[in-house]
Structure formats: C-alpha cells, structure tokens
C-alpha cells in the first residue's frame, strides 16, 4: 500500500540529544518518519537505538533538540540544567496515539489478556465498552489468541504474550507503532510467530518504527533502514541499497558480524 501523495511526517526529530550525567547517549538524531513507512532502526548495543525510540513517546525525556509528533512540537521546560515535560496533558494525548511494544511484553499481570487489551481504549480513550470488546476480540483473532482471551499473562508463552501486547497496542488505533526489540526476549522458536504478526501490520500500511536485531526482517519488511552509531544516524536508506553493501563500511561490518553469528 504505497501512499500516493507525499505523506506528512508522523514523527520528526531534529538534533535530538539525551544525556545521562556525563554520558551522551544520543548526540543529535535527525529522523523523519512519514505515514506508511516501516523503519528499522539498527545499531550495536549502546548505539542509543532503544533510548531514541523511548524518547519518541517520552518514556525518556530528551535533553535537547526538537521532537515533533503527529504535527505537534512536544513542549519542554528547562529545569536544573535538564529538560522536563512542560505539558503532561499533551504528552498523555500523544502517547495514546503512539503504540508501544516492549522487549519484555509488559502486559499487566493482574489482568487477563482481554482485559489488558480493553484497558486503554476503555479507560484512557473513554470508548464504549461493547464496541471495544468486539474490536479487542478481532485483534486477538488476528494475532491468533482469541481462545486465550481469558488467560492471565503468566499462563502464556513469551511469543503469545508479545502477540497479545501487539494486539493491546493496535486496539488503541495508534497513528504510529513503536517496537523496542520485540523479539529479543523470546526463545528462538517463538520469534517467527511475532515477526509474522509484525509483517502483517507492515503490509497493512501502518507506520512503524522498529528497533531490532532481526536482519532478515529489516531487509525484507522495512521500507527504510536507519543505522545508529554512537548516538547519531550513521547512515540510512532503503534496505535494498544498504544490504547490497558498499554504501557504508561500518554498516557492512555490523551486518557481517550478525550474519556470522547466524
């Protein structure tokens, strides 16, 4: 599903920085994600890719630079040499339109799968419970978990939990989905079922930003690959161009390192 018009940016960062004390994790990241793009963010551990993703929905507060989400500049105020969120309401409003899938699933352990999925639409968005229920069941069916609706997270495998977490994110009808290493905590045999669901979402034309170590997925599913190194964008481009090799020596070395690992 290629957008016909040049789509508007869903997320735009300019010179985004993040500092923890003396440690510069992000040193100015410029990135624009347009509607319908599927962007894989790659990088070695410590390159800042997870921190960058978490800045986009303000789970980390950037230290500097500008962050524009869904056409709105996120407002910050300076306090004690650092930045803070200036408008908590704005952030909550934006967060409810940004879906986030975590490495460790982070389902609420005191609620069933169905309750997990209905929580946001009913209690944050204030939507009608019956409508939400129908939509939640649809989402569960999509990720193949309808018969597990009344299970608690602790009764599910990691792959099932992550699929439930994806269902939880999509019933919020988000404008963009963020995935923070969604398969890194899974046993190898469970990775495929999660990637399959993500591939379906990408094929639907959803806007997605994915921090991942799954090279094959980045190459085959994403529309753009962004390679972070030491807190900045080292190189970015289409997966075809980048994975062909010869575009950036550091990226090639990074990829060959991964393929050696198998």
């Amino acid at each position, binding site marked *: 599903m290629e957008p016909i018009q040049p789509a508007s940016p869903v997320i735009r960062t300019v010179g985004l920085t993040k500092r923890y004390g003396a440690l510069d994790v992000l040193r100015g990241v410029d990135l624009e994600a347009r509607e319908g793009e599927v962007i894989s963010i790659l990088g070695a551990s410590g390159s800042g890719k997870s921190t960058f993703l978490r800045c986009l929905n303000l789970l980390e507060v950037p230290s500097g630079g500008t962050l524009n989400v869904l056409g709105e500049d996120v407002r910050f105020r300076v306090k004690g040499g650092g930045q803070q969120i200036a408008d908590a309401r704005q952030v909550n409003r934006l967060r409810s339109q940004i879906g986030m899938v975590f490495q*460790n699933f*982070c*389902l609420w*352990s*005191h609620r069933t799968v169905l309750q997990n999925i209905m*929580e946001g639409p009913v*209690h944050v968005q204030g939507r009608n419970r019956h409508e939400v229920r129908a939509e939640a069941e649809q989402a569960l069916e999509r990720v193949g978990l309808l018969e597990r609706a009344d299970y608690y997270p*602790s009764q599910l495998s990691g792959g099932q939990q992550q699929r439930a977490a994806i269902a939880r994110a999509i019933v919020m009808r988000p404008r963009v989905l963020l995935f923070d290493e969604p398969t890194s905590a899974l046993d190898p045999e469970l990775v495929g079922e999660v990637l399959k669901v993500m591939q379906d979402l990408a094929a639907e034309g959803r806007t997605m930003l994915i921090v991942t170590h799954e090279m094959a997925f980045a190459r085959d599913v994403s529309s753009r690959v962004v390679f972070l190194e030491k807190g900045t964008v080292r190189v970015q481009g289409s997966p075809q161009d980048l994975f062909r090799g010869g575009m950036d020596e550091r990226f090639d070395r990074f990829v060959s390192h991964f393929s050696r690992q198998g």
Partner: protein
Amino acid sequence: MDWAFLFATAKTLLAGVPLTLELAVTSLCVGFVLAVGVAALAGSRFAPARWVAALYVMLFQGTPLLVQIFIVYYGFGQIGFLRASFLWPVLQQAYWCAVLALSLNTSAYGAEIIRGAIAAVPAREIEAGRAIGMSGLLLRRRIIWPQALQYGLANYGNEAILLLKATSLASVITLMDVTGLAYRLVSKTYRSEEIFMVAGLIYLGLTFVIAAGVHLLERRLTPCRRV
C-alpha cells in the same frame, strides 16, 4: 480434667470476644487509614515528608505496645491542654485509649506493608501504563493499587492477626476483653492454667477464622497467581 469448670470458664471468657473483636476491628480500620497517610508521606517527593514518615514508623516500631498503651492511658491525663480539650471525654475512657494506642501502633507496621507493596509493583508494567497515556490517579487506580493490593494482602492479614493478639494488652488498662475476663477469673479461683488455656484456645480460634478469611480473599483477588 474438670470439664464442667472448663465449660463454665469458656462461657465466661467468650463474653469477652465481642470486645476483643471490636478493639481489633476498630484499630485495624483506623490504623489502615493512618497507614495509608503515612505510606503516602513515605512515598512523597518532598524529603521532609519522608523524614516525618520514617520517624513515625521508627517511634511506633521501636517502643513496646504496652509502653504506648501506658503513655496514652496514664500520660495523656497529665497534659493540661489535652484535659481541657474536647478530646478529653474520649481520652478519659480506657476503651478509646486502647483503640488509639493499638491504631497508632498497627499503622506504623501497616505503612511499611503498604510501602513495600507499592514498591513491588513491576516498574515496567507502570511504564506500559504511561505508554498508553495513563498518569496520576488513573495510573494508580488501574495499575498500581490493584497490584499492590495483591502483593500486600497476605502481609496485612498477618498484621491483622498480630493486632488481634495484641488487643490482649488492653486488659492491663481495665478492659474486660477475653484476657481481662480470664485474669479476673483467675483472681477469684486461682486456677490459672485451665483458665489461660481456655483463653489461648479462644484466641487460636479467632486467629484461625481471620487466617481463613484472608486466604479466601487472597484467592478471590489474585486469580492470576493461580496457574
């Protein structure tokens, strides 16, 4: 064994059960309200509030309950402005002195249980709540408190049992609870072993009921732990 005497004793002592339960339940409720307040102070971003909470907990955990009961019962009467205040008609009664001392004491332990239960809620599940746009009261009501309740319930049930047994100290300030009645009966009959054995059995029975109740509540409230 003198069964007739044991039954007569049981009948006498069971008359004290309502007072024992009343002391325990009232103190548990008042203590819980105080405990929530103290736990809120302990979790405050404002450092002096945390110090006040720490001092409160240290004072009540660090001194014997019996001493606390004596201070309230004998000590408060020495304080002029308390005698003059509207509180005096209440503080004059041994019953309310016992309730006050027991409530303050249990609230210190309760505050620690609540603080621990809140701290036990996994940070990443709270983060998942923030990530969908929750904050403030909504986040607490939907994510933090329900989970803290699950973590804290067993410990608070324990505290309820400790409190029930602690009410026996109220007998030293003239209250005729189970222990008070037992003591009076001993001074009349000098048959202390039998009487205190019966008193002990009554407490054991009450404790069993509370423990069973807590267990039932736990099963109801934590379906997710039953895998």
